[in-house]
């Protein structure tokens, strides 16, 4: 058994930023365990640009954004192991990992959970129909094209208006495929407005809201899909069925934090984020186990993932120094119009950053954090949409010692 101050599970953007910040704060006895052959996580296949605008002030591709962090990791000789799959995390912070050197066991003082997220699949949606090949999640199609040089499609239909789906619509079009349309079951797009413009409208790809796939056809390969309109309850409306001939159906229907290791260790999850319940230190219900990035809640921008992981590293470093963190006994509840918040618990003694998503589209609204009827913090928004995470700093001055906090849209 090897002892470590901090074991970081995952070498994607959150893991890299956390490791670097821990090191810079003087915590050097750390290791990053990465399942893949390379560091960088999902950024390796996100070859489009638009990353790093807030962090680096320029538009980088995913691999460049990751490499900027990897270079810093290498410069400091921060230890990492690739091809290392963590099999189990225990509640007393032991980590079992399958590595090229065989099975390894670590005892950590602190564990950083940064495993990212997974895509929702056809199985999770329960789309009826036959089971031909040619149905891919957007990320799978992206890996085929951007890592393995395999063209997965000629005639394409996309279900779901997530960002990766729209980015793949453009990518497939540039490589010669024909993308017929994007269908979204919700009455609003789930991806960022800029991607609707630069990935769909620029290439004359129509986006149909309130539509979904209701049947899948094909023997060995997909031959077509049935599309139906849906009502306000998202139920398909009989008589609206339309057939589309295609060889490929791309699914971009949501991301789910990958928390199998966390739950096995006894980490409590929030049913809304599907990530851990954390306090303002990004600490889970297990002292010394921290979570940030997409394993905590799905982000739309990697720049914010890096910032969150750095904030986590700040707390984890204090935990290593002091053996504990100040208690957080004040709960934050998601109120009217708010889907979830991070953190879910605070101490009330220090300023913190509140992250949240709204449930539907709002114009000229106020996001209000209240405690015992008093306004603690307010953010005015011209436009608030579910596709964009909202973040603002809350000052501790007005926070009282007792009373649950609630954040809502007004």
């Amino acid at each position: 058994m090897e002892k470590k101050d901090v074991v970081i599970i995952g070498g994607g953007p959150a893991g890299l930023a956390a490791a670097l910040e821990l090191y810079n704060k003087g915590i050097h006895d750390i290791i990053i365990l990465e399942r893949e052959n390379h560091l960088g996580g999902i950024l390796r296949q996100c070859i489009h640009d638009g990353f790093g605008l807030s962090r680096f002030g320029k538009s980088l591709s995913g691999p460049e954004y990751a490499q900027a962090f990897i270079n810093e990791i290498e410069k400091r000789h921060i230890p990492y192991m690739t091809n290392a799959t963590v099999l189990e995390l225990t509640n007393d912070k032991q980590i079992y990992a399958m590595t090229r050197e065989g099975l390894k066991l670590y005892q950590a003082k602190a564990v950083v959970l940064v495993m990212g997220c997974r895509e929702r699949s056809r199985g999770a949606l329960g789309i009826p129909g036959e089971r031909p090949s040619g149905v891919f999640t957007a990320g799978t199609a992206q890996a085929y094209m951007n890592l393995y040089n395999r063209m997965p499609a000629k005639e394409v239909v996309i279900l779901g208006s997530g960002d990766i789906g729209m980015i793949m619509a453009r990518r497939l079009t540039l490589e010669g495929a024909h993308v017929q349309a994007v269908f979204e079951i919700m009455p609003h797009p789930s991806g960022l407005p800029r991607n609707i413009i630069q990935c769909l409208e620029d290439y004359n790809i129509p986006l149909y809201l309130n539509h979904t796939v209701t049947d899948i056809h094909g023997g060995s390969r997909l031959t077509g899909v049935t599309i139906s309109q849906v009502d306000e309850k998202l139920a398909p409306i009989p008589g609206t069925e339309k057939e589309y001939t295609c060889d490929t159906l791309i699914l971009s229907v949501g991301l789910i934090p990958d928390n199998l290791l966390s739950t096995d260790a006894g980490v409590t999850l929030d049913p809304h984020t599907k990530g851990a319940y954390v306090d303002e230190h990004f600490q889970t219900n297990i002292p010394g186990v921290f979570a940030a990035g997409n394993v905590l809640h799905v982000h739309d921008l990697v720049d914010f993932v890096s910032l969150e992981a750095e904030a986590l590293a700040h707390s984890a470093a204090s935990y290593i120094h002091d053996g504990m963190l100040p208690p957080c006994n004040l709960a934050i509840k998601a109120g009217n119009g708010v889907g979830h918040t991070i953190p879910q618990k605070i101490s009330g003694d220090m300023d913190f950053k509140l992250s949240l998503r709204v449930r539907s589209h709002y114009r000229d609204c106020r996001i209000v954090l209240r405690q015992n009827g008093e306004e603690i913090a307010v953010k005015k928004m011209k436009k608030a949409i579910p596709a964009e995470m909202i973040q603002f700093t809350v000052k501790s001055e007005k926070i009282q010692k007792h009373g649950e906090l609630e954040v809502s849209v007004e």
Partner: protein
Amino acid sequence: MSESTIKKTYTCIICPNGCDIEAEIKDGEILSITGHTCPKGEAYVHQELTAPTRTIAPSVLVTGGELPLASVRLTKPIPKDMIFPVMDEIKKLTITAPVCEGTVVLEKVCGLDSEVIITKNVKAK
């Protein structure tokens, strides 16, 4: 508002804020502009009105590498109607590993003021 004045809504694509910008336009000139939260928004609307530009970020083939391709991007936006001609030029390229991030593989692609650069390190196999 005179008859030749048109109101147009833009979604700015320069950053993830995606500002909704409303512009009043007459004879190709912007009379008024609202909704942008930074100067880049105004520049974007002006560009969209006169000569829209975009970037693309595809990949090029690599021989002898640990990966069969390396990602690339443009250093500057190009006219929207040049996207496919530029794609054709990029598709013709094959480079040999090792490949280093930042390497220019096409200067002044299609005679435009933009370069194609590698964005991923690919080691030799």
